[in-house]
């Protein structure tokens, strides 16, 4: 049961270059076909085991930034490097990055036609080429970790939102990613269910997973975030260590935003 849980896997890449940042974003811009400039010269670097929380008003480009990190969107300018692999047009690089980066969506996006176990197994067997039994062993370990081992044979529609989101996290972890991206992972949930998902995310952070988290949950940001990035109009307005950011924001706009949201 202990083979290959992500936490044990995570220690592997550490051998290489622990000091170098895992995510390097250099001056990226992105304009959609409808003319909306969603990202406008954003630069960011994230070190190994760091938890970066991105906040900002609706439409500020938070999701777009996240989606650029695993190639769901292509940048118009600038470059993205994940774990020393540049995200370019090379098929091999793209595939490698998609396996390095796990993503959890606001709307869960579980595969409705597969059981919980099927969801977690799918990529392991198809992409990692594991045997069915190997994959199942790893999946069950992950499901235990998110507290859902007993629901392995349920279908997503039979689960509550919080449970679905935890399965989505397990599914992403099954690829043993170096980096996890969370896009408002709790904002489609009922208040009571938010807690259980945040709990799992806290656990990941404590285990040293590198994470970029878009959230409205300031409690979580304060508690688990190493660094806060505040975006507006596709730009980073302000960033800083969590404590400093919340206690003495430098920008007027940040103060205004925090005032409204807290």
């Amino acid at each position: 049961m202990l083979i290959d849980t992500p936490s044990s896997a995570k220690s592997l890449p550490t051998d290489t270059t622990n000091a170098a940042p895992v995510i390097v974003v250099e001056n990226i811009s992105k304009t959609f076909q409808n003319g909306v400039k969603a990202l406008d010269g954003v630069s960011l670097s994230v070190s190994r085991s760091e938890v970066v929380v991105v906040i900002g008003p609706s439409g500020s480009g938070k999701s777009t930034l996240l989606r650029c990190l695993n190639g769901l969107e292509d940048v118009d300018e600038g470059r993205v490097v994940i774990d020393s692999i540049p995200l370019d047009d090379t098929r091999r690089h793209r595939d490698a990055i998609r396996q390095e980066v796990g993503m959890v969506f606001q709307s869960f996006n579980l595969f409705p036609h597969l059981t919980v176990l099927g969801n977690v197994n799918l990529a392991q067997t198809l992409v990692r080429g594991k045997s069915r039994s190997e994959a199942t062993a790893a999946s069950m370990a992950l499901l235990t970790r998110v507290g859902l081992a007993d629901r392995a044979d349920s279908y997503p529609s039979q689960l509550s939102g919080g449970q679905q989101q935890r399965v989505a996290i397990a599914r992403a972890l099954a690829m043993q990613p170096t980096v996890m991206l969370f896009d408002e992972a709790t904002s489609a949930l009922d208040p009571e269910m938010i807690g259980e998902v945040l709990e799992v995310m806290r656990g990941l952070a404590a285990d040293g997973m590198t994470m970029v988290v878009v959230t409205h949950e300031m409690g979580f940001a304060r508690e688990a975030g190493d660094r806060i990035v505040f975006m507006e109009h596709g730009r980073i307005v302000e960033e800083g260590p969590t404590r400093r950011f919340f206690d003495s924001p430098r920008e007027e706009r940040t103060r205004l935003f925090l005032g409204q949201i807290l």
Partner: protein
Amino acid sequence: MMRTRKRPAVRPLDIAVILALAGLAAYMGWRVEIRLDYDWRWELIGQYLLRRDASGALVPGVLTQGLLTTVRLSVWTMLAATLIGTVMGLARTSTSLFRRLAGQCYVGLVRNTPPLVLMFIFYFFLADQLLNALNVDAAVRAAPLWAQHALALTMAPVNELPGFLSGLMTLAVYEGAYITEHVRAGVQSVERGQFEAAYALGLSPWQRMRHVVMPQALPRIVPPLAGQFISTIKDSAIVSVISIQELTFQGMELMAATYMTFEIWITVALLYLALTVACSLAARRVELRFRRGLS
């Protein structure tokens, strides 16, 4: 599919498809060379489209007359079928079990019977009785001359009118079943919340339909309705079995007389294509208009 990335303009699939099509065409051409032996007489087709009458004036030829009958029949059918379809479609979304069941029986029966068979049964058993009961034939023959002319222009000449009306009714009942489903789907596509909001505001069922549901359902109903018009044009070919002299009937008559099988079939197909493609284009414009109006 979801990403727009700069890629080479010509993709492998492009080439594969071009090669496949070219291969098929070449093979067909080769087979035609060695097999088909047909004495083409395209030069004779013109007179069936346009011809000179005794006085030398240009008048529509047999096929054009058929085409016009097809158009008249389709337009009237569509009007009648839209009426039937709207009534039955609303019945299918009604709260009354009776109306829902009646609508369901109608659609189920009509859509599961081969149109040819439906045509026969309706034409010989029902349409005539209706026409006789209304005494249409006598009324038309007694009508003033100008009215008869108007009828001949918009429907059919007096002596062919009963047949035309029977065919029209039969086709309308057939197409109406499909329109019923379009109307039902359109009404059901309006979100439940809209019904609820209208209810909460105190609107009556009729007001709810008229001011809230229909304005939203209509943009979703009109495109399939336009598609149904194209189907109607095509389906009108089956009334040839009950001797309404539309395009297919005229084509078959002509073929029986002249034995110019291919020339006539191809001409008839092209005439249908011209008609339906014109309708498709119009339909697309209507659809775009509605879509723009909605957003």
